[in-house]
Structure formats: C-alpha cells, structure tokens
C-alpha cells in the first residue's frame, strides 16, 4: 500500500544551525511533492512544491530536494531561528484522485 513516512520524533536543534527533515514514500510515483508548515492549533500552510524533474528547489532559507530513485525528499532550513519551530508536513498527490496525502509530520524545535 502507499505510504508516506516522516520522522515522528521531534527534531531539536540550536539557533543558527541547519535543520534537515526527511520524507520517505513507498508505492508512489509522484509528479510533485509539497511541504507545509503547521503551527499549534492552526491549519497547515504551504511552503514549497518540487516537481519530479527538479532535483532541488530553494526559497529564502528553505531548500527542498527530491530523489525519485531513493523515493525521498529532504527539507532544509538554514540559519534556523526559534520562529521556525513548528511541525512540517510533506504531501504527495494521489495520482488521478485530486487528493493530497500527507505524512504525519515532524516537529522542529529551535532553541535560542
């Protein structure tokens, strides 16, 4: 069955370091992969989209990679700040069904 896995354990890092979050998937052949940020008690907010033919995508301090051979996406936040503390979700389109399927998310905690 199709599965999306994100590290369920929180990632704790110090301010200024680079945070790297992982999204692994099985039994998918996605054309696109999306990353969302969710703050406590709020709905997820879109951050970045990467296409299967793109190896890397950047937006300010954010960088996403997409390796369709490894079936993995990495999400990096450089020069992390306490304000980056949130849960980050990856999502894949369930092909042909117009529905995004979300991973369970990884909580990031950035300490001053």
């Amino acid at each position: 069955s199709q599965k999306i896995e994100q590290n369920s354990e929180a990632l704790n890092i110090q301010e200024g370091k680079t945070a790297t979050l992982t999204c692994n998937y099985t039994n998918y052949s996605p054309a696109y992969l999306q990353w969302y940020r969710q703050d406590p008690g709020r709905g997820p907010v879109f951050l970045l989209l990467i296409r299967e033919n793109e190896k890397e995508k950047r937006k300010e301090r954010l960088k996403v990679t997409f390796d369709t051979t490894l079936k993995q996406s990495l999400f990096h936040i450089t020069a992390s700040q306490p304000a980056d503390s949130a849960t980050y979700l990856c999502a894949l389109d369930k092909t042909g069904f117009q529905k995004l399927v979300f991973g369970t998310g990884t909580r990031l905690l950035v300490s001053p």
Partner: protein
Amino acid sequence: DVKVTQSSRYLVKRTGEKVFLECVQDMDHENMFWYRQDPGLGLRLIYFSYDVKMKEKGDIPEGYSVSREKKERFSLILESASTNQTSMYLCASRLAGGGQETQYFGPGTRLLVL
C-alpha cells in the same frame, strides 16, 4: 490571498447531538476537503468534494456526512456525535489542477464531545 474560513474555532457538544461544521472558501476552487487531525495520526481525509453536489469518501467517512450545495461552501455533519469524534477538524480547498496545485487550509475547529 485565498481565504478558507471555518464557522467555529472551538465547539463543545454532547454525545448524540447532531453537529454541523461549516467551511467557506473565496477563491472559486473546485475541490474542497474535510480532514481530522489527532496526535500521532496526522491528517486523515474524511470526505472530499470536486464539484457542487459531488462528494467522495475519504479514508475515514464512518459517522460523518457532507453537503456541498454551493461551490464556495462545504459542510461536515456529524449525525450523532460520539466521544471518539473529539478532534481537530480542518477544511481545505484547492484548484482542480492535480499535484501542482497548492492546498489552502482553514484555521481548524477543535471539537470536544462530552
């Protein structure tokens, strides 16, 4: 900016009550979704609608129904609320363009069923 609004941020209901959760989007999106989110389980799709009066079951539709009479409005109905339906409910909308389209979420409704 796309705006997705939900009728309530917090709701407290009694077991057996009928509960209506309303969602409105202002960007003429074809697709609308209802999810529930519980700790450790992530976002789980309850129902999905790709057009007015059209609906499709998601992964956990039992105990829920939906209504989409107008394009901008998608309602989730708990026919007879139970304590295991205590959860955060999130509505979302999206253009019908496939995987490249961003999904926009509402602020969520935290429902407590006593």
